[in-house]
C-alpha cells in the first residue's frame, strides 16, 4: 500500500492518490479541533471566539493572560493539585489489581472465565451516567461520597478494564515455550515470572497504567457526582468553567494537557519499540 508498483495503470494511480487524500482529510478531521484550540488559548478576549484582531495577526489580539490565570488562580492550582493527588493513586490501584487479574485470566484453566471477564470489563461498558448515579447513591449511603478515597476508588474501578485489556493482550502474544525453557533450565515459577514474563508484560502494564491514568485524569461525570469541593479535579474545574463562566483559561489548560499527552504518547511508543525488540520482532 505504501507505494505504487511502477506498472500501475493511470486508474490505479488516481485511485491511490485520491485514497491518500481521503486519509489525509480524515486525519485532518481528527486533529483539527485540537489545533484550533491552541491559538484560541492565546486570545486576548474572554470568549471562545476568533476576534478580528486575531485574524489580522495583530499582536494586540493575543495574550498569555489565560496561561497566567491558570498558574496564578488558586482555584485552578487547587484543581491541578487534586488531579495530581487522585489520578496516580487510582492508577496504582487499578494497575496492581488489574495486572494480577490479567495474569490470572491468562492461565490455561480459569473457571467461569466469561462471567468474570464480563464483570471486570463492565466499568468500561456501563454508561458513565449510570455508573455515576449508582456510585453516588451507594457511596452516600456508606459515607464515601465527597471523600478522597471515594473518588479514588471509583476512578480505579473505571480504569481497571484498560489495564486488563492491555496486559492480557501482551500475554496473548506471549510465547509459552519461553516459560518451559526457563523451567527446563531449572528456574522456579517465581524466578520465571520475574525474569521471563515480567519484562515482557511491562509495556502492557505501562500502557494500561497510562490509560488508567488518563481515565482518571480526564474523568468528569463521576467526580461531579461523587466529589466535594475538596476533590475538585481539573476536568471538574473545566466543566464548571464551561457552564458558569466561559473562559479561555480552559483552552490554556487544554493546550498544556495536549502537550503532556504528546510526551506520554512518545513514551508509550518508545516502550512499545522496546517491547518488540525484547520479543525479537523487528521494529520494521
Amino acid at each position, binding site marked *: 500500500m505504501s507505494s505504487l508498483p511502477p506498472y500501475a495503470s493511470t486508474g490505479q494511480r488516481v485511485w491511490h492518490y485520491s485514497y491518500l487524500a481521503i486519509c489525509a482529510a480524515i486525519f485532518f478531521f481528527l486533529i483539527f479541533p485540537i489545533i484550533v484550540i491552541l491559538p484560541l488559548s492565546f486570545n486576548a*478576549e*474572554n*470568549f*471562545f*471566539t476568533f476576534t478580528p484582531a486575531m485574524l489580522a495577526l495583530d499582536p494586540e489580539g493575543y495574550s498569555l493572560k489565560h496561561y497566567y490565570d491558570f498558574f496564578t488562580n488558586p482555584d485552578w492550582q487547587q484543581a491541578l493539585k487534586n488531579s495530581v493527588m487522585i489520578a496516580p493513586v487510582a492508577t496504582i490501584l487499578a494497575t496492581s489489581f488489574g495486572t494480577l487479574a490479567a495474569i490470572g485470566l491468562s492461565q490455561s484453566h480459569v473457571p467461569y472465565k466469561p462471567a468474570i471477564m464480563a464483570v471486570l470489563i463492565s466499568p468500561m461498558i456501563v454508561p458513565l451516567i449510570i455508573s455515576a448515579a449508582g456510585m*453516588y*447513591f451507594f457511596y*452516600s*449511603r*456508606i*459515607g464515601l*461520597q*465527597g471523600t478522597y478515597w471515594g473518588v479514588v476508588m471509583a476512578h480505579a474501578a473505571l480504569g481497571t478494564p484498560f489495564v486488563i485489556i492491555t496486559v492480557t493482550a501482551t500475554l496473548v502474544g506471549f510465547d509459552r515455550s519461553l516459560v518451559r525453557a526457563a523451567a527446563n533450565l531449572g528456574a522456579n515459577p517465581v524466578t520465571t515470572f520475574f525474569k521471563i514474563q515480567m519484562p515482557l508484560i511491562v509495556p502492557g502494564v505501562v500502557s494500561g497504567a497510562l490509560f488508567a491514568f488518563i481515565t482518571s485524569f480526564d474523568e468528569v461525570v463521576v467526580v*461531579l457526582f461523587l466529589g*466535594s*469541593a*475538596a476533590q*475538585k479535579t481539573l476536568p471538574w474545574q473545566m466543566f*464548571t468553567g*464551561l*457552564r*458558569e*463562566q*466561559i473562559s479561555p483559561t480552559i483552552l490554556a489548560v487544554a493546550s498544556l494537557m495536549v502537550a503532556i499527552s504528546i510526551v506520554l504518547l512518545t513514551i508509550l511508543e518508545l516502550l512499545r519499540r522496546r517491547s518488540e525488540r525484547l520479543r525479537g520482532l523487528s521494529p520494521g
Partner: protein
Amino acid sequence: MKLKTAILATSAIAMMSGTAVAKDMTIVSWGGAYQSSQKKAYAEPYAADHSDINIIWDESSNEAVAKLRAMNEAGNITWDLVDVVASDAIRLCDEGLALEIDPDEDLAAAPDGTSAADDFGDLLVSECFIPQIVYSTTFGYRSDIEAWNGKEPETVCDVFDTETFPGKRSLEKRPINNMEWALLCDGVAKDEVYDVLETEEGQERAFAKLDTIKDDVIWWSAGAETPQLLADKEVVIGSTYNGRLFSLIEEQDQPVKMLWDAQVFDLDGWIIPAGLPEDRLAAVKDFVKFATDTQRLADQAKYISYGPARASSAPLVGKHADLGIEMAPHMPTDPANAKNTFLYNYEWWADYRDDLDAKFQAWLSQ
C-alpha cells in the same frame, strides 16, 4: 443518644484543640463572578477577624438539592452553608433538609434598628431562607444588527417578533419563565397568567406562541451560554441573568443592550443544612449574621449587579469596585428598570413543574 455523645465528643475536641487549629467551613455557591463577589464582600472581611475559620468553597449549588438529599440519606452532612435560589430553598425546607431560622435572632438588625424580619420583608419566602440578592432573568440584545434597520426591541414581545427582529434567540431550556412570557405576549393579563397556565388550553396556547419562534431558538441550560452566544453573534437576543449581561456589557465591552421589560424577579440566598453538629452550627450562624448585615449586602453590589435583599442596603449601594461606575442604575430593582416586572410564582411551579417539564420536553423534541 448517639447524636448527643457525638456533639459532646466533637465539642470536647474543639475545646482541647482551642483556636490554634483553623476549623473548616464549607460554603456552597454558584462559582464564577457571583461566587467571587461573595468571597470579596463577605468572606474576606470575615476572615480578617476570624483566623480560626478556614472557608472552603464548593461550586455545587446547581446540584445542591440532590446532594443535600443524598447527604441526608447517608446521615453525613459535609456542607455548612449553601447558596440556593428561593424555589430550591422552599423545597429543602419542605423536606426538612434545611434548618428553620429566626430572622430576628439569627440575623443582624439594620443600622437604624429596624428588625431583620422587617428589613428583609416579603423576601423571607421560606422559614429556612436567608435572602441575599434579588436578581432577574431578562433579555439582552445586540445593538449592531443591520437587518433590524435601526429599530431596537422595546418589549418582551419583540422577542416573538421575528419579522421586525430577525435572527436567532436564546431561551432557557425549561418551561419556567418561557411559558409566562409566551402567554403575556399572547395577550394574557399579568395577574391571570398562572390561572390560564393551569388549564390545558392555556398550556397549549403558550406552546403555540413558542412554536412561532421555535425554529429560531437556541436553548441554553447554563447561565454563561447566552453571553457567549451574544458575543459570538450566534444569537441576536437572549435571556439570561441580569448580572451576566452586566458583565458582558460593562466589563467585556460588547455591543449589547439590556431589555428590562417583563424581567422575572427571583431571589437567591443562604440555607443552613439541617442536622449540623452544634459547634459547626454556631460557627456558621456567626458567619451568616455577619455576611447578611446591611453593609455586607450593599458591598456585594460593588462586584456584581444584583440588588441587595435588605431594604436598608439599597441606599448604600455605591460604585463598581474596578470600573468605578454607579451600580444603582444597573440593579434590576432600580425604578427605571423595574417599570414592568413579573413575579415568579414558587408555589404554582412546585406543583406543575414535573408535569409541564414533561410536556415541555416532549414539545421540544417534536
